[in-house]
């Protein structure tokens, strides 16, 4: 039932997996340290996102082999994220609007 092309079987040296594994540890530690040193505001925000994206990228590209996949599947998997990004953008604006309306019209802390 499945395709059986032995030629396409790709194995990678064990080293690359161990490297990525180590990097994931390091970046997880970094993102933990963001909390440990209690960074706040924009710095915290950007550092968290930065480490998160790096880790996600490493897992997807190496562990999930996306780096070695053909563009057809990579594009198919990544483009739909645009819809999510639009959703995020809209909901950011929406929740800000909700917050301001509430702060303007409602008593807080009752």
């Amino acid at each position: 039932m499945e395709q059986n092309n032995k030629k396409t079987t790709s194995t990678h040296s064990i080293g690359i997996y161990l490297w990525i594994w180590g990097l994931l540890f390091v970046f997880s530690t970094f993102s933990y340290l963001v909390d440990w040193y209690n960074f706040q505001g924009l710095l915290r925000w950007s550092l968290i996102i930065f480490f998160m994206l790096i880790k996600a990228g490493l897992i997807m590209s190496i562990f999930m082999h996306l780096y070695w996949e053909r563009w057809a599947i990579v594009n198919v998997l990544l483009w739909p994220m645009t819809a999510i990004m639009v959703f995020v953008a809209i909901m950011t604006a929406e929740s800000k609007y909700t917050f301001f309306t509430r702060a303007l019209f409602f008593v807080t802390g009752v």
Partner: protein
Amino acid sequence: MDNEYNNNKIETKAADSSSGSYVPPADNIPASEIPEQELYHAKSFWTRWVFCQDAKVIGVQYALTATAVGLIGLVLSWGMRLQLGFPETFSFLGPATYYQSVTMHGMIMVVYLLTALFLGGFGNYLIPLMVGARDMVFPYLNMVSFWMFLVAVLVLISSFFVPGGPTGAGWTLYPPQAILPGTPGSEMGIVLMLVSLSLFVIGFTMGGLNYVITILQARTRGMTLMRMPLTIWGIFTATVLALLAFPALFVACIMMTLDNLLGTSFFMPEIFTMGEQLGTTGGSPILFQHLFWFFGHPEVYIVALPAFGIVSDLISVHARKNIFGYRMMVWAIVIIGALSFVVWAHHMYVSGMNPYFGFFFATTTLIIAVPTAIKVYNWVLTLWRGNIHLTIPMLFSLGFIVTFVNGGITGLFLGNVIIDIPLSDTYFVVAHFHMVMGIAPLMVIFGAIYHWFPLISGRHLNQTLGKIHFWISFIGAYAIYFPMHYLGFIGVPRRYYEMYDSPYMTTGVGLNQFITVAALIVGFTQILFLYNIIHSAFYGEKSEKNPWKANSLEWHTPEMPPAHGNFGKDLPVVYRWPYDFSVPGIDREYIPQHVAPSEVPTAKVEKT
């Protein structure tokens, strides 16, 4: 395509020589990239007809279940119409019953009938046949998908029998009212509805993965994406939309179930209802609406896109002409699908969301009108200079065009944010969406059933009954929904149990009675259709092979109806698109997809 890469492609693609003179191409086809699919052949009655792994049987199972539940939806609509046309005549219809009917009618028709019928029914039956595969890629998962759907339907039906009855929250299930005591069915009904929807999503995901992977990875040799029938394009895009849109519904269902059962405050702000504080804090009802419509708008196209695809094929076959602008049609389907994810909040113009969203969503919504209009133009341009057989599928296709154009242009009213303000939540909306995603897709479904019934059963449906069915359904449905727009202009809100004591609404009485009578007539005509199907399945006129002289692969199986595994010993090899009708330079009126260019050397076909 660049020639240097043609080592793996069929030679015909490279044969479009630049010199301009047509050179008959060689037919050599490289061997398959994918090994022969192993199939589980049924050994007993149970595995052959009940727990069957054959996509064709699963498709019929889906279709029958969806039709059965759709009939319930139809009967519910009669109750609503009786109340609206002749209020205070029928004592069994109280406001609670009325709202429960409205809700269940909407949900059944949109999700359990149309989605399941187009994707589960037509999708399962047609995809493997039309792309030249033996079966779906995961027959077992496909079977489980149907059984999940059946369980979802049973859970839904069971809500009619629980204390408090089914939910009456409207098909949009907006919280807070969906789970507060002021709404009928807020005890068990809403929970069962949410559970049923979640099960439907899970079951559909199993099926949907099958459809997508079968189309992407299991086509036969020569079947490039740009040679697939538009039916497949429609179903494919709709399935992709469903796989990406249903998650939002699933999440919304989970969160509302928790709000209901555990008393969380996802969608529940501070609420003072029926004289007491509810104790919830800080939630946002608008969040639910965003999630719901992030699912709900693509859902409209989940229903519409397969209809677009199927109707293109019906028109082309029965007008004996290639579909006009195939590439445009494909791109239009894909663009509509992609855009459908960024227009959802046009259902929420009056919901109290951030008012500046109106600009963005009105713009994106009206942009969708462009590819949609192109599709309409291409359908009528396909008729132009065709040779139109007014068969029943063709009649239904024509009916589709009229109802769809009508419903589509009223969509331009509602999509344009400022016009939506007076019209939203009135009968204008009801008329609009029934026209565009009720009647129009149903026209296609009927046409498709008349078209493919010979393939499924080996017999024709009765033509006379079919014509009666068409004319009553089409004219009747048009008579129901066209005048209904004007109720909306007066300002009659939807979901009103009765409304006649308003001074300026009394004018609508006669119109409402007319609509009710028309609706009952159209509804009862469907019994004629069911009789036709059941009777013809056993006693209908025997059909010869390929009765409509179509080109696509499903008509060219060794047996008709096709056996398990679809295509005999060898899978067909495809050399052309399915629209080579009336090709010049050759006597044959049509050239099926698997006819090699060497068999029709004089045909002046264009490259596909």
